[in-house]
């Protein structure tokens, strides 16, 4: 197995290559506005650093959010295009699961905890994990201050927790998910079973759009029937 993993659902544009025994190369750059510019060069750099070629890839894993939509779509559509052209499967991973996996790998949490990223509009994307690292609630999007006290009281990782440190009592690192964690999580699931997600975005919100009111139809029906 040679799995290429990346995530663009947070300000971290992060890429890693994993050969099912470990991470061969990885790269992370934090820039919330340049996912579209940084991801493809990051992929080329990681392949080159590991001395592997695109033709050797067997799997692609991509963070499917939740995360700000514009950046999120960069990762997913890139993964879909790569998978389509290379003829390899594309697996989705919840970005909060990658963040949670990184926190447990780094030892910043041991017991139950919550992972939270910035959802903008004064909200966070969040999920709750048990002591074994399994997601038991979420992903969801809410105002930090409106989360249940038992959630807010847990150790909290991620930039969403750091941003609302007064709501989350016990804020810990890491700030962002990384693709090395995402890749390791995906490989564990692929090898050990447990399944991964479809490569479809977890938007969690509907598009902002108002159906306008007050159009006065002066002529119902008409040539061609479009009216």
């Amino acid at each position, binding site marked *: 197995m040679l799995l290429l993993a990346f995530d663009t659902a947070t300000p971290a544009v992060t890429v890693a290559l994993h050969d099912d025994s470990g991470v061969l190369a990885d790269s992370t750059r934090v820039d919330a506005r340049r996912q579209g*510019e940084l991801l493809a060069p990051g992929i080329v750099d990681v392949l080159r650093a590991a001395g592997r070629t695109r033709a050797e890839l067997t799997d692609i894993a991509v963070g499917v959010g939740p995360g700000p*939509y514009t950046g999120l779509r960069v990762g997913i559509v890139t993964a879909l295009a790569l998978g389509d052209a290379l003829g390899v499967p594309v697996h989705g991973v919840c970005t909060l699961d990658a963040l949670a996996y990184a926190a447990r790998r780094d030892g910043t949490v041991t017991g139950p905890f919550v992972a939270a990223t910035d959802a903008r509009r004064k909200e966070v994307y969040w999920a709750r994990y048990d002591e074994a690292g399994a997601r038991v609630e979420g992903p969801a999007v809410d105002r930090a201050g409106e989360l249940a006290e038992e959630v807010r009281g847990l150790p909290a990782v991620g930039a969403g927790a750091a941003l609302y440190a007064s709501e989350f009592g016990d804020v810990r690192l890491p700030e962002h998910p990384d693709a090395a964690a995402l890749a390791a999580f995906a490989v564990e699931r692929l090898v050990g079973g447990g399944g991964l997600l479809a490569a479809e975005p977890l938007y969690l919100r509907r598009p902002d759009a108002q*159906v306008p009111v007050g159009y006065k*139809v002066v002529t119902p029906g*008409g040539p*061609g029937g479009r009216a």
Partner: protein
Amino acid sequence: MADEPLVLGIETSCDETGIGIVRGTTLLADAVASSVDEHARFGGVVPEVASRAHLEAMVPTVRRALADAGVTMHDIDAIAVTSGPGLAGALLVGVAAAKGYAVALDKPLYGVNHLASHVCVDQLEHGKLPEPCMALLVSGGHSSLLLVPDITADVRPLGSTIDDAAGEAFDKVARVLGLGFPGGPVIDRWAREGDRSAIVFPRGLTGPRDAPFDFSFSGLKTSVARWVEARQRAGETVPVADVAASFQEAVVDVLTRKAIRACKENGVEHLMMGGGVSANSRLRALAQERCDAAGIVLRVPRPGLCTDNGAMVAALGAEMVARDRAPSTLSIPADSSMPVTVSQALS
């Protein structure tokens, strides 16, 4: 001509996911997935709805184009993509997909200008672009007159709209008349049954001191709305066909008058038309009439290639390859306000 470059073009600047495949100047496939029906109830294109639709449509539309062209992914020599101008989030889906395909196939990437693509697409129907030529580019987002010495590297704007685009005026007037969205095709249909001289609506920016090649359609739209509302307040029936025909005539009169003048003043013998509004039947007819009278050769692609599509992007990409232009880097951004003077995003 099997040695001409086989180019896949990706267009996502607005609400159409367009994938085109061309070999040189030969059109092989033009697959379009439109989200227009999802926008209709909002009375206009909702950017987030368009972006979501592009993501869902991307791979299926690429697959459809490859099947239509009878080629495989590995036959592709280069990837071209609209890198701007357009809706930022929508553009980014296409640019990221194009980079994914370019990386996977190890082929060069060309990030090209949407407006230049609208001019270049006629190569697929009527052969090599005459250069220099004049281009009248009219759509829901743009209304420009361009002098084109070299479509891949030298496009000079002579004028553009100072307020609404021509297509925007069609949408707004359709709303006033209760005809729904998009306004262009429905006004065209109504206008065929109306009298285009029934009401004299204003011709914007046509005074002796006005900028000769700029356009203004905002005042026209307001004038139509006032006229219609006055009839409504008086309890009269609004003559929809006459209003549509008279409004449309005001738009196409100004567009064609200024385009012919631009050709004459610059000594250019060919006028190209492109963009969604150039699918309008009255604009095509009046442009032909006035070009014939002025001794100018009019070139306008069939309506299906006037609206946004991937073939036009592939056409410009193929021209870049044919002229040995260096490819774009994998770092090019999606540039929502890409100037028309920049045919290609290099890095």
